[in-house]
C-alpha cells in the first residue's frame, strides 16, 4: 500500500536480507530487502512490527533518533504474560517509548487486521473510508505519520498523547473494527466518558 502511494519501502528482518529476498519479491514487489541497520539509516519513518516477546531483546540504538511507528500489541492471550508490559500505569506504547528513549514513538496500525488492510482502504473523500487512530506525544510526529496513513487510504483520528494509545489497544471499542471517522470519534468519546 505504501509503495502504491509512492513511498520508498525497505523491509528488514532480524538477519541477512538474502533470506527474505524471494519472499519480498513475490509478496511485496517493489520493496527493498535490506539489513535492518541500513533500512533504518535511510528511513524517515520506521514501522516496528515484531513479535512482542522479541521486543525485550531489541536494540534501542538501532532506531535512535528515528520516528518509530509502534504497530505492536500487548496481547496476553496470544503473547503470554510479559513482565515488561504488565505495568498498568502505562499504555503499551508508552512502555515501548520508555525503552526506545532516543526515538519518537507514534502508535497506529495496531488496531486493524493485516488481512483487512488492502480491502478497507479507500480514496480520500469516499464515504466508506475507514478511520485509524494515530497517537503520540510529539504533535509533529503524529501529523507526519497521519499524513502517510491518509495517503495510503485511510482517514485518521489524531490523539496527541501516547497515553491515549490505550484507547487503541486490544479490548478497546475501536480495536479491529471498521469505523468511519465520525463513528471512530464517537467510540473514543464514549470510552473516555
Amino acid at each position, binding site marked *: 500500500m505504501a509503495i502504491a502511494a509512492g513511498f520508498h519501502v525497505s523491509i528488514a528482518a532480524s538477519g541477512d536480507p538474502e533470506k527474505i529476498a524471494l519472499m519480498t519479491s513475490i509478496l511485496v514487489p517493489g520493496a527493498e530487502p535490506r539489513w535492518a541497520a541500513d533500512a533504518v539509516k535511510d528511513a524517515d519513518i520506521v514501522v516496528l512490527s515484531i513479535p512482542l516477546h522479541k521486543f525485550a531483546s531489541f536494540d534501542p540504538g538501532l532506531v535512535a533518533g528515528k520516528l518509530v511507528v509502534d504497530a505492536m500489541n500487548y496481547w496476553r492471550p*496470544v503473547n503470554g504474560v510479559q513482565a515488561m508490559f504488565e505495568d498498568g500505569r502505562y499504555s503499551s506504547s508508552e512502555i515501548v517509548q520508555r525503552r526506545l528513549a532516543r526515538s519518537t514513538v507514534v502508535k497506529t496500525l495496531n488496531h486493524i487486521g493485516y488481512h483487512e488492510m488492502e480491502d478497507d482502504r479507500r480514496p480520500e473523500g469516499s464515504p466508506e473510508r475507514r478511520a485509524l487512530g494515530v497517537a503520540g506525544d510529539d504533535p509533529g510526529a503524529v501529523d507526519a505519520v497521519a499524513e502517510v496513513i491518509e495517503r495510503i487510504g485511510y482517514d485518521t483520528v489524531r490523539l496527541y498523547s501516547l497515553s491515549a494509545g490505550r484507547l487503541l489497544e486490544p479490548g478497546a471499542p475501536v480495536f479491529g473494527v471498521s469505523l468511519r471517522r465520525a463513528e471512530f470519534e464517537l467510540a473514543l468519546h464514549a470510552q473516555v466518558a
Partner: protein
Amino acid sequence: MQFPLVLGLDTFGDRTNDAEGRPISHAQTIRNLVEQGVLADQLGVDFFGIGEHHTDDWPLSAADVVLGAIAARTKRIHLGSAVTVLSSDDPVRVFQRYSTLNAISGGRAEVILGRGSSIDSFPLFGYDLADYETLFEEKVNLFAELLKGGPVSWEGTTRAALINQDVVPHTEAGPFPVWIGVGGSPQSVVRAAHYGFNLMLAIIGGNPSRFAPFSRLFDQALKQFGQTPRPVGVHGPGHVAATDENAREEFWPYYEDVFRRIGKTRGFATPTKEQFLREVGLHGALYIGSPETVAQKIAANLPALGATRFDLKYGMGGLSHEALMTNIELYGTEVIPRVRELLASKS
C-alpha cells in the same frame, strides 16, 4: 491440473448442543465425531481432519485416537490432523501416533503441522511462548528426519538428542503425506518448501485472494530448494444447508456467540452481522450457503489460489450434531460432485 482434486472436511470437534440448546458432554461430542467421520467416508469425501485444541469449547486434544476409531470403520477416506500443534508436542510421538494411524488405516494417514494460532497447549505442556519460532523450526526439522524412515540422529535445543535411533512403527510404503498449515506467515511457506512438504493455506477471515501470492512463493521456493512441485490446499470455514438463508441463519447465532466469547478473552470486538455477511459474500472467507453457492465459491477460489485441495471446516460451537450431519451429507452428495463438474469444465 498436476495434482488430483481433493475435497475434504475438517473439524475442531466444536462442542455441540442438544435439541434443547444445552451443551452435550465432551464424551458424546467425541462419539458423534466418529459418526461424522464414518458418514463422510460413506459419501465419498476424500479427507477427514481433526484440529487439536485443549479447551472446553473444543475438547479434541487427542485427535489421533478419534481418527483411529474412524479408521477402523472406514475403507477409503484419508484421515489426518488439522492441525497438529507440533511446537508443543514431541515430534517422535507425533510420528509414532500417525504411523500407527497409517498402519490401522492401511496407508490413509496424513499430518498437517502447525505452529498453533491458539496458545492453550503451551502452558499445558510447559512450553514458553517466547520460544514459539525455535520450537516449530527445530521440531519440523526433526519430523522431516523421522519421515525418512531410517534410524535417526538429531540434535537440537528443544528436546533430547537422538543417536542412530530406530523409531517405530515403520511405515509400509514410505512417508505419509505431510502438510504445513499456514495462516499468514510467509516464513512458514518457505519452510514447507524447504522440507518438500505440501502447503495448506488456512484462510479464516478476509479476502481469500490475498493468499494467491503465497502459492506463487511456494512454487518459487520449491524450485530454489531443488524440490519437485507439491500441492497446495485451502482450509476454509463454512456451513452447508438446503438454502442460502437456512445456512446463514443456522450459523450466524453460533458464530456471533463463539466470536463474542473469543473476543472477550482476546480483546477484539464481536463481529457485526454486516461483517459476517461480508465474509459470506464472494470476497469473504466463509463458505456458507446452499450446495450450489458453496460449490461455486470453492470452484472459483481453488484455481485463483493455485490450489487443488479444499477442506471445509464445518461446525461452530453450539450447532447440533443433526445440523452437522446434514452439512456433511450435502457436502458429500451435492457440493463435491458439483465442484468436480465446475472445475472439469474449466480445465
